[in-house]
């Protein structure tokens, strides 16, 4: 949880400014997001019939189970990413600094 400085709602955000980021939290979020992908792409780990659950072969109920695990991982990652980044300066303010990028 180191290096987390809140720069607060200061104005005049320069376009090159990237919000302060807690890298540890982002890394944890990254791992949480990678888990379902690795688990489901590793097909040989679950391509079998037993044990059955309510008549469903393992192959099927195991993948259904991952719908919930994945949703949990993604939601946790979402909370972590929100916590990892300082709110962007200027957010919520109705201020136009006359910058036209295009």
């Amino acid at each position, binding site marked *: 949880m180191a290096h987390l400085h809140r720069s607060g709602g200061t104005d005049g955000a320069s376009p090159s400014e990237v919000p302060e980021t807690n890298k540890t939290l982002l890394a944890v979020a990254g791992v949480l997001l990678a888990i379902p*992908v690795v688990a*489901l792409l590793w097909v040989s780990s679950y391509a079998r019939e037993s044990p059955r659950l309510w*008549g469903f*072969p393992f*192959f099927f109920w195991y993948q259904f189970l991952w*719908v919930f695990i994945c949703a949990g991982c*993604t939601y946790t990652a979402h909370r972590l990413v929100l916590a990892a*980044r300082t709110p*962007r300066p200027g957010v919520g303010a109705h201020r136009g600094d006359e910058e*036209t990028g295009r």
Partner: protein
Amino acid sequence: MSAALVPLVAGKDGLDGVALAVLIVLFLVVTVLGFMASRFQRGDSLESLDEWGLGGRKFGTWVTWFLLGGDLYTAYTFVAVPAAMFAAGSVAGFFAVPYTIILYPIIFVFMARLWSVSHRHGYVTTADFVRGRYDSRALSLAVAVTGFVATMPYIALQLVGIQAVLDVVGLGGGGNWLAKDAPLLIAFVLLAAYTYTSGLRAPAVIAFVKDGLIYLVIIVAVIYLPSKFGGWTEIFGAAQDKMAATNPTTGKPTGSFIPVSGQMWAYATLALGSAMALFMYPHSVTATLSSDSRTTIRRNASILPAYSFVLGLLALLGWVAIAAGTKPIGVDGKPNPQLVIPQLFEDSFPSWFAGIAFAAVAIGALVPAAIMSIAAANTFTRNIYKEWIRPDATHAQEAQVSKVASLVVKAFALVFVLTLDKQNAINFQLLGGIWILQTFPAIVFSLYTRWFHKWALLAGWAVGIVYGTYAAYEIVNPLTGKHFGGSLAEIPGLGDMGYVAMTAFVLNLVVTVVLSFALNAAKVANGSDETAPGDYFADAGDARVERNRPVLEAGTDQPAG
């Protein structure tokens, strides 16, 4: 509408009047909703692409959930996935489940960045972003054309989904051209009319009805049908027997019950390739960019899997149909696995509930068809019309061109389905999936770095497309002897079968990396970048956002009405 239909179909055998009446009533309800949608979360006027084509960029979490759910899980999916399970088993059909699960961690990573940079610079399409990132008209055009071309057959397939339902109800097999195609024609004229007037708001509102019906039908079907056909053990047993039986033509098993050794790569690459490709399609991007904040899309990544669960249940209904002994035979008397789910409902449910189920599929086709045509039209307007034909087009002109383009796109899809064999639409959809994945490096990698060179990205894209098309052509269906017979081919150097889009993607990647290295070493200019690092983190209400409309009532998470 019903008065017009009756004389066309009177006297035909197998017409289910009650189911048809329910279907027509529900269809009329969504038509009215579609026209009324123009007032939903209304901005000052519809005369800009932000309003017409992106619903004002202010859909909150729940509207986005319904819209994306209605967009990604299309009627064709609901017809084709169980059909694939029924005909060829789990490798062909059930991969849709891991595909739509791993999809969400993948898009979680990059879609927020795409949302932010698009919000900051007013991008409407991915090609807009590529244009801004490299100032490269060629690369932007490649991305735009790929998206446009890949979307067209996808729209056509939504019509195939509606046709499947009409076929089972007993419509669409009449002797003359008019009786055969009139129902589909009417459905599409109505769809075109309210998309034209309401823009993206129409599918957003209709999606509520569509998803409500789909959930209702699937939950009832999954609770009621297994008990009717002897329980899940019986159903899996029947499927296992059918898949293990030897096909007399090929001398091989009919299909796969559970992937066996040698099919693991096929299953995994189909899931991964499809997941990476889905959010490269213009319609997925349109639905994402219409959301009101950077967090909306990430929050949605954790609630959208609810649809994946339903899709898995629906896939298994293909096997319920095996146990039920469903015979999917069209009005023309030919067997057609695409009809298996409508036929199962027709056989197992009372007419009125079958009508609701049919309406769910038919309305399920309208939502994605509307979003896809809007997305294709936005792509045409921004990246072809404004970029190459009328660079000085105003916002009102852009909206007007886009509205007309959405009509043309739909008309094209209709002609495609009515005049050509359905198999062409399916083949092109297969190719579309291969092609769209080749835009992944240009879009996703560019969100993070400009190390990749614009010419290398273009070359990789071209190699991927040429190889993928060739590889898909070489796949011959063992039963019919026709080309484009599937999406699996031997992975060179590995020996196992795999999704050709992924093989093409790897080749694309190698070319892109090698050429980027060479071009960067030779210090070849890589265009100018109008985006700044901070743009990729911009959120709603960012002070620096360019706006062509003086509104900022965003932040309302509640759907109004």
